[in-house]
Structures are given as structure tokens and as C-alpha cells.
């Protein structure tokens, strides 16, 4: 008898047989949502270059995905990916990283890539904390949360990353949680089809670090809570700030078509008389 193989296993490096995630981590759900999107578009891993930063979620494509993968320095995957995409405009370049990597140390690259509207698909796994380094507060940690670096409660306001990237000029912005794997996968698919900067914020549980800090507890409790606090974008638009307190707005924040950066570079080459 041969062991049944998962239908998405074909997208993974055959010799990689284990992940580094903790029990209950949401990364498996996010990874599956990405690979389902790739599969549903009939794409091959050879159509992609995956670029990852530093942190737990950066370890999704490296070493798992059987594609060209670039594991970079902390905060810089979008900057590396910009050079890759500008050099290989026909390839799909996906950036996978976390909230600390992309919005704290790498925040400048995030907003400028969105402003340029370069055709990258960025999947940001937001677990509201620094997981890999042991539970420090992040720009996404809710105020007053006690973490190892905010033992008296976090003294800062949290970023709303989807609103930030929308304001910075991205073509496509969506936020879902690991309690919405189908919607999340669909958002990745839409992002991959969009010619422009696509940003998919995947709110994901880290029971080991954020579960402990927030006292939300287990993975199961955290996913249950995502379902309870999620409010669709459309419904949220009719709600007052007081009504939205403690809620998580999910859905499509932006979906527009505008000139994409590598297309603009090609136009500049045409004006200069260079070959395209």
C-alpha cells in the first residue's frame, strides 16, 4: 500500500519533510491557502519567485516551496523582490513574511512598493507579536497587551496594516483570518491575478506567544475569537468607531486598476528608444 499524498505536496520540495512551526500555529492554514490559490490558477512553481524575510512566516516558502526562493535579511524582502520583479517582469513574485518584518523594520519598503504599485503579491502573516524571538510587542500588538517587552502593558497604538497599505497606493488589499481559509485563498488568487501591488493580510494565531500574552489561550480559542470579532468591510462602513472597538474588519479593502511599475519602466524604455 502506498501512502496517499496530499494534492498540494507536489508544490513542495520533495526532500523537505518537516516544518518548523509550533503546534497550533496558523502558518499551515496560510500556506495551504496560498498553494490552493496557485493550484486553482493552474500555475506551476516555475512561474514563481518567492521572497521571504525573517520570522516564522518567512519560513513558509523557504524551505517548503519547490520554486526559486530567496530568504533575505530582516525587513527587506520587498526591497529584494523589487529587483527580482523588475528583472523578471513575466514571473510572479510573491513576498511572504510577518507583521514585524514587513511593518516595523521593513515598513519603509512596504509603503514605497505600494506607492510604486509594483506587481508583487505580498502575503503578510499578522500574528500580532514577534513569535520567533520570543513574544516581544510588535507594531500590530494591541495597546495595553502585556508582552516580554511591555510588562506593564503595551504603551503604543497598533497599526491597521491593510488601511496603511491601501493609503500608500496598492492596487489590491484584503484582510482575512485563519478562520476564513476559503476567503483567504480567494484573496491570494485575486492578488495573483491583479497586475499591481497586492497585499493580503492574513491574521493568524500564535498560541505560543500571542495566545499567552493576550490570555486568549489555545489555537482553537483564538480561531473562535477571530470568527466572533470579524466584521465584513461593507458592514463596518456603516458602524461607528465605538461599535468597531475590539472588532476586526475583514474583506477587500481595495481593488482598483492603475498603472503598474514594471509596465511604467517598459514605457520609459520605449521613450528612451531602448529594447523591451
Amino acid at each position: 500500500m502506498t501512502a496517499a499524498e496530499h494534492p498540494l505536496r507536489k508544490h513542495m520540495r520533495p526532500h523537505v519533510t518537516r516544518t518548523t512551526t509550533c503546534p497550533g500555529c496558523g502558518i499551515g492554514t496560510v500556506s495551504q491557502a496560498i498553494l490552493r490559490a496557485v493550484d486553482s490558477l493552474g500555475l506551476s512553481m516555475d512561474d514563481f519567485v518567492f521572497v521571504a524575510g525573517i520570522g516564522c512566516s518567512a519560513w513558509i516558502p523557504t524551505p517548503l516551496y519547490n520554486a526559486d526562493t530567496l530568504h533575505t535579511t530582516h525587513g527587506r524582502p520587498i526591497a529584494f523582490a523589487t529587483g527580482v520583479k523588475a528583472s523578471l517582469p513575466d514571473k510572479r513574485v510573491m513576498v511572504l513574511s510577518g507583521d514585524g518584518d514587513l511593518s516595523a523594520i521593513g515598513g519603509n519598503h512596504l509603503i514605497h512598493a505600494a506607492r510604486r504599485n509594483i506587481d508583487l503579491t505580498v502575503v503578510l502573516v499578522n500574528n500580532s507579536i514577534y513569535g520567533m524571538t520570543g513574544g516581544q510587542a510588535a507594531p500590530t500588538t494591541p495597546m495595553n497587551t502585556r508582552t516580554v517587552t511591555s510588562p506593564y502593558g503595551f504603551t503604543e497604538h497598533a497599526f491597521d496594516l491593510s488601511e496603511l497599505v491601501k493609503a500608500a497606493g496598492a492596487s489590491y488589499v484584503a484582510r482575512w483570518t485563519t478562520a476564513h481559509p476559503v476567503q483567504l485563498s480567494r484573496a491570494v488568487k485575486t492578488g495573483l491575478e491583479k497586475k499591481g501591488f497586492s497585499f493580503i493580510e492574513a491574521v493568524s494565531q500564535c498560541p505560543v506567544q500571542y495566545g499567552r500574552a493576550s490570555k486568549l489561550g489555545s489555537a482553537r480559542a483564538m480561531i473562535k475569537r477571530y470568527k466572533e470579532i470579524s466584521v465584513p468591510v461593507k458592514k463596518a462602513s456603516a458602524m461607528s468607531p465605538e461599535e468597531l472597538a475590539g472588532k476586526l474588519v475583514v474583506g477587500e479593502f481595495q481593488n482598483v486598476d492603475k498603472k503598474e511599475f514594471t509596465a511604467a519602466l517598459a514605457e520609459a524604455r520605449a521613450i528612451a528608444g531602448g529594447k523591451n
Partner: protein
Amino acid sequence: MPKPRVLTGNHFQIGNWACTEGALAAGCDFAAGYPITPASEVANFLAARLPEVGGVFIQSEDEISACCSAIGASWAGRRAMTVTSGPGISLMQESIGFAAATETPLVIVDVQRFGPSTGVPSVGLTADMVQVARGSHGDYQIIALAPNTPQAMFDIMIRAFDLAETYRTPVFVMADGFAGHMRERVSIPEAAALKVRGRKIAAPAATVLERTDFLDENVAPMPVFGLGLRAHVTSSCHDAHGMRNLSDPEVMHSYVTVPIKKILSHRDDIVRVEETRTDDAELIIISYGTVARCGIAALELARAENLPVGQLRLETCWPLPDREIEAAARKAAHLLVLENNMGQMLPYIRACVNGAAVVHFMGPEHLGQIQEPDAIVRVIREILS
């Protein structure tokens, strides 16, 4: 009609222009940069010229991004460069280590300026000589070349791309504000006369485990992106297949030592010096960059007084031309290290000499003003009297 890639002919131009045309003549087709004095002209010229030859120029949001984008472009198969000055190099240091660790071909032009910190932007000082070699954390080896004229800024770009592509390594062009802004004759040869060795490209394999993509002292073929090679690239400790390995002591050892040996074991191909009248010299000036021209002027004045003076100009500064310096120390009783800084290369040069000659140092009398040949001759007279 757009201008061709190689502007064959004689030009009266500044060094930063020559640097740009050298990059194009070397086949550069990607550059990213951020405005900074005294390097801005190179980025400005590249922004105009690269699209004409089908290349890409990106003005990045900062120097960190510029260096990262150039590394990404190199992995995507481009001949990539970035250009900046001291403060930009400081910001790029982390990514420079990344390029060294991932064995990425990359040319970084540093039109050096007066520092530390924001210093004096428009005044040339070769103030980054050590930071380009030792500035990123960890143990690694890069290549650095120092041009002394606008013509050399053209020529050295050809060599920089040749070495970067051949050895899969970051190569620095250590210009300074003087060479960058000086206007002189620049002769560009026919395209056919310019030779840049290209990188070796990896072959397809079932998995990366069947291929050596990294950690070969004789340079592993590069698994360039976009060719279906399914490369695994990480600057974290990795094995010869590029797979991350943070626990095997053998892998940890080779991850650091092999890329260093890769450069040092090919030093004969990499190291170039220019010797002027060293054979009968009792004093040899050791210099590099623009100030080496003051060294030659002083040498001629001294020779007119029958003072036996020679010069060893380091075109390659890293890896340090240790054997050439040692040989000079055996020829001459006195070495005069002439640097346009407070003596950045001096301790390294002294270590190569190892007591075989008396080592003297002369920096500018006033930092920011390059040494006067007459002043150098006065120092030479004193040493030889």
C-alpha cells in the same frame, strides 16, 4: 536614436560619467540608487542611459533598498550594480554581508567623501577603505578596486563586473570625490576589445540536493532565478545545496571559510598593482586612488633630484596585495604610505611589511586637501637624508 551601449571614442568627461559608461560597456543592465553627493551623477547618468540599452534603473527609497534590489536583480540574472557614498555604504552594510554570504555578483561604487557621519559631502576623502572590507558583521571577504583617474573609473568598472561575475562576489569600486568630479580625457575602446567573463549558470536537477550551488572554492555555477532551477537561496548558514543548516559544525565551518577561500585562492587573478621605478628605489611610496597621482608627481620631482624613489599603487585594495607589499619592503629600506585619510590601510600594510622596511605615513596636511607633491618630496628628503 538612442546612444549605443559602448560609446567608443575620446571624451572629455568627469569620472562619474566614465564610471557610468564603464558599467554599460561591461554589460550592466540593472542599477538601483539613492541620491547622495558626490555619487549622484553616476545614478543620474545611469537613469538616462540604462533605459536606452534596455536596462532598468530604480531610484530606491533608501540605500538599503537600493542594495537589496540590486542583489535581487543579480539573482534574477542581471549584471547589477548600485552606487553611493560613505553614509550609503553604512546603510548597505547588512545587505553587503548578505551578498557575500549568498555569493551574489554585485558591483558597488563608492564615491567616497569626507566623514565621519554626514561630514562634508562634496569633499573627497578615501574614508571607507576599511568599512567596505570589514563593515558588515561576521567573517567574509570582498574585492575592492581603487581608480585614480576618470579613465581608470571607466576601466575599473569593466574589471569590477568581470570579477563580480567570475567569483560571484560583491566588488567595490573605491572612487572618491576627486576622481568622480575631475574632468579629463576618457578613451573608450571598441566594444569587441572589452572582455567581461560571465557567470557560470547551474544546470537543471531533480532537486537542489543533486547540485552544488554554493560553497565551492572554484566558484559554483549560479542557480539563477527564472530558469526552472528551483534555487534555495538564504544568507543563513547553508550547505552546498543552499539548504539552511544551523546545527552541523562542518556546514557552519564551510559556510564561512569557503567563500573567503574562494577569493583568496584566486588572488593572483584578482590582485593588480602598478609599479613605477621600484627596482632601484630606496624609498617606495605605497598609495591608491587619486592621491597616488600626487605620489607620481612627487616621484618625478624626487628623481629630478636623484632621489631613488618608486611607487607601488594598489589598484586592488582588497584582498590586500600582501605579497607585492612584502616584495616592495624587501627592495627598499623605506616605505612611505600615502593615503588621503588618517591611515586606514596603514596597519594592514604594516602587517604585510612585518619589519622588512621602515614604514612611514603621510596623510594630507589638512584633511580634505589632497597632499601637495612638493610637501611629499620634503618628507622624502627628510626620510632619505
